[in-house]
Structure formats: structure tokens, C-alpha cells
């Protein structure tokens, strides 16, 4: 039986600010994980990653990260990716600062 494919999102850092970004279905880069395109097909994931990597003047370090469907949109699975959606735990900096949460 074929190995089941864990859904993915394409993530990277914005070239100028370094902030974490996610590729959306309509080819935007969102700062919000919930807006990411949840990719459930392995071949499609590779194509989306290639698309991301071609945008070398916009982002840096694109890769595929595991994710799952959530009520408000895709959610991260690994704790590293969860931290990337928020920012550091010692100060309310990064995304948590921008959203005033």
C-alpha cells in the first residue's frame, strides 16, 4: 500500500523583513498560516514548491511543512512550525506583536 501523504503548506521567509510567510492558493504570500494553501497531493506539493522557489526576489528558504485542516484554515503540526506562526516565547514580538495578541 502506498505511504499516505501528510498534507503540506509551502512556507518561507520574506526576503526583506525575514518574517514567516505562507503560499496561498491564489499565489499570494500571506503572513498567516490559516490562509495557506493546504496541499494534499504530493506531486502538486512539488509544483507549488517550485513555483515558490522561483520567486527569489520576494522570499527566501521555501520548503514544505506538514500541516492539517483546522476550523479556521490549515494548522501546523510540529511545534517548530507552531512557533513560526507566532514568534518567540520570551517577548510578544514577531507575529504576536503585529496582531496585538
Amino acid at each position, binding site marked *: 500500500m502506498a505511504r499516505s501523504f501528510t498534507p503540506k503548506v509551502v512556507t518561507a*521567509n520574506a*526576503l*526583506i*523583513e*525575514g*518574517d*514567516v510567510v505562507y503560499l496561498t492558493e491564489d499565489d499570494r504570500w500571506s503572513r498567516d498560516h490559516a490562509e495557506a494553501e493546504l496541499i494534499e497531493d504530493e506531486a502538486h506539493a512539488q509544483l507549488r514548491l517550485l513555483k515558490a522557489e522561483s520567486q*527569489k*526576489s520576494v522570499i*527566501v*528558504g521555501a520548503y514544505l511543512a506538514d500541516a492539517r485542516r483546522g476550523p479556521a484554515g490549515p494548522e501546523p*503540526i*510540529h*511545534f*517548530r512550525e507552531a*512557533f*513560526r506562526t507566532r*514568534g*518567540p*516565547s*520570551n*517577548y510578544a*514580538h*514577531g*507575529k504576536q506583536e503585529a496582531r496585538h495578541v
Partner: protein
Amino acid sequence: MYKYSDFDEAFVRSRNAQFRRQVERRVDGSLTEDEFKPLRLMNGLYLQLHAYMLRVAIPYGTLSADQMRQLALIADRWDKGYGHFTTRQNIQFNWPKLTDVPDMLDALGDVQMHAIQTSGNTIRNVTADHFAGAAADEIEDPRPTAELIRQWSTDHPEFQALPRKFKIGVTGSPNDRAVTKSHDIGLRIVRGSGGQTGYEVLVGGGLGRTPMVGQVIKPFVRKEDLLPYLEAIVSVYNLMGRRDNKYKARIKITVFENGMEAFRDAVEDRFKVTKREFGGVGADVLREIEAHFAAPAFRNVPEDAYHVARAADPVFRSWTDTNLTDHRAPGYAILTVSLKAHGETPGDATSAQMRLLADLAESYGHGELRISHEQNVILPHVHKSDLPALHAALKTEGLATANIGLVSDIIACPGMDYCALATARSIPVAQEIATHFKAIGLEEAIGQLKIKISGCINACGHHHVGHIGILGLDRAGVENYQITLGGDHTENMAIGERAGPGFAYDEIVPAIERLLRAYLDVREDASETFIDAYRRLGATPFKAALYPAEAERDAA
């Protein structure tokens, strides 16, 4: 303090101008990230989890008041109003924008600072004893040597693409506060048989995934031979070091795989050539550099105010008990200012704190500041009569914590709160240990203790040499913390022994509490420190405290 020559100044300015153009070409798309990455790393610019990070060298940990003020200005203008002091005497800014970095580097250049070779496979910032030039036990100030090595290694054409990064640390005291045995090359200033000073040279130390204690490669190198001897070591490593596997590329592996004898022989052969080529140039430069590090004009005034304040104010007395070290000049002390206020991030300083420290260094400290690998700030030359005023001033910015050398004076790397390499967080673990032991009132009873925390196997937090080391790992997608016991960061460096299975994030602080309560139970008296008790009793009682269920099973 060292003042840049015209050559230094022109070099730093031209490097900054080059980097400004490289950033422009990256932004306009003419450089890809693959092309740009080695260029930004050569200039100290990393990309981390949430943002870029600029790592600025503080050579041999020495800062002037003006340099500290400039770091505060950079933090305010281009970052988030703070900086993080690291275990290699660097400062890291965690939130710069790529397009602001050239301006930040120019601002550093204005105060004779830079970020060159704070990354990449080059000779990194040269570190030294943070009490250099002040310590009572010092044979000689190690900073002129460190500055000489900085000049030799900066942009050294042969050593810009070494098999791996290369770290050098220097101490001028027999009591090693620079962790020289954990460096690729460690230098200890020693007295030769004729009374003249030279260097004991250690090689092949390192922490990381394969921790090793540096070994003596040559017991005495004359001062005039230092640069050709270092050149010989690094050039032999450059050829012999492995490039097929980055985890086996450090000099410790080269020495280990080839054997010290073969490595030493190769160095001696090469040294015959380099010695002739250098022809004593290093010794001339060293003499010039030494003049920059002349001791300040120490005052000879009464200490009465200090003793009066100690008698009258228990808070002041407790702070002077923990935060002072013997100075070589009568009436003076070395003051360590803690960047480990309970619950704060180890090594972080706000711009306001930096400005206050700069002002106090000017008013009371002959204008000098130091950064320690233990992530604290030092005023190396303070007259004891000024300590009451200093203490009062430090309190205004939360800098008067009396905890140097205690359970809350923790080294912690940035961990997964910032670092792209990390496998778990370190900072919140340090914060919770510090606040917890303060809350349960055991900090003073526990006494001298080194806890060191790394958020990955690369060991920036020096966990292997902590009396208690904590290593954060990713175990099946969950943060997990391994404890090592019995490490030692001094001239008797020892690698700690792994205690057993790791602990979950919410179990690590209770585990440390069990461990330290066991220490309080088994120590002979209050004068026996944790590490002394561990050496006397071995790991057994401490493992039993960490793993009570297993201990019970074994006893049944």
C-alpha cells in the same frame, strides 16, 4: 583599549561598502539566495526562524562606553530596543530588516566595531577572559594577544574557506575563565623557565555533537613565535581536515582521527617554514598593540564608604558577596552586573540598560566594559568606595540582581525561540528555573552552581560543561530535555555525564528541583558545593533523585 589604525578603518569601511552593494544586488534579483548566503554570512547576517539576525563581534569581550551606547542606538533605531549577548562574546540583534543591515554595519564602523567573520568557515571572533587586565590572579593581559590574532585572522586569504568554523580563546590567568579547553585552539599565557611569558597551546577542544577536551600540542611557544605557530596549526588543519562530512570537519576530529602525535609532527614541519616567512613581524605588532592596553590610572582613596554601606544595607551586602571578584589593584573590585534578573532572558539587555551601563562605566569604571561568555556585563575596574552609588544606579534599570554564580545565573542559548538550528526552546526553561528557585527560597542555600542550557546538540549553551547541563531535543515531535551532570568549564574541564532518559518540557523544572533537594540532603555542610558533592559521591544519589520510580524498583 585598542584604537583602529588607518588600515583597520579603511578595511572595515570598504567591506561595508561591498556588502551594501551585495544587498542591493540581492534585492534587485541579480544575486540568488545561494549566491548571496555566503556573502551575508561572512558579514554576520543569519536568517533565523522569525527574522534575520545580525551577530556583531565584541573582540575579547571588551567594549568602551561609546561602543555600548552605539549598540543601544542600533537596538533602538533598527531593532526592537534590545540586544542579546552570547556565549562567544558577541551581541546579536534579532529583528533587523535586510535592507537596514548596511546602515547598521556603518553605525558599527563609526565606533570601530564590525560583524566580520562572526559566521562562516573562518576564524571567528577571538574570545578572552572577561576579567582580563583586572584579575588578581592574572599573569598577563590576554587581550593584546587576542587583538594580534584578530588582525592576523581577519580576511586571512588562506583561511576564508576552512573545512569548518574555527574558534580561538585566550586566557592570561591560571584560573581559566575563557573555557580555553573547549576551543579549536586554546591559548594559556604561562611563565617559562627563565621567567619570560609565552603560551601553552591547546588544540582540538570543542563541544557540539562530539564534545572533546582540548589537549596540549606544545607546552611553551615563545611570544615571537605565536603567529607562525598558529599559522602552522591552521594550515595543517586546512589540508588535513575533512571536507566530506560537516560533522567530522572540526579540528577536534582531525586530531582525533590522525592522532595528536601525527598532527603535532605535521604542525612542526609546517612551523619550520612559517617561522622563516614571518621573520618576527608578529612580535613587533604585538608590542605596538600592548601599548593600547595600558592599565588605567587607579585611584588610591579610602574604602570606608563601601564598608559602611555593607554594614548598613543587607541588600547591598548580599550583592557585593556574589557579584564582586578580586582586583589586582588595592581598593578596587571587578563588578559583574547580572543580565539574569529572575524571569528575564539570560544575556538580554535593553537599550536603556546599555546606556546606563555606558554612563556608569564612564563615571565609575575608567570607561571600560566587558561581556562574559556567561552572558553578563562586567565593569572591570571599580573602586570599592563607588560601589554604593553604582548599586543604587543599577537598581533603576533592574541591573542589581545579586545572583552571580548561583542557580539563576544560567547560560542559555537562544534556542527555538529564535534559532533555525534549535530542536527545542532554552530561554523559557532558564526563566522558569530562575523564578522557581527564587519562589521556593532555595537559591541562597544551594549556593555556587553552573546550570547551562542548549537548545540543540551544537551546544552554544555549553551544556556539556555545566555542573548541571540541560540539552533540549525533539523527540517524536515533542520537546524533550536531557540532563548531564558533573561538567566543568574551568582549567579542569570535564564533559558532563548523561543522567538518563530525558524529561518533557513541563517535567524539567521539577526534575531540577528534585536533583537540588537531593544535593541539599547529601552535602556535608553548606561549604560543599553541588559539584564537590557530585565528585565525592558520584552520580548515584543524584540519578536516584531524578528517577525516583527506577530507584524504588532497583531497591525492591
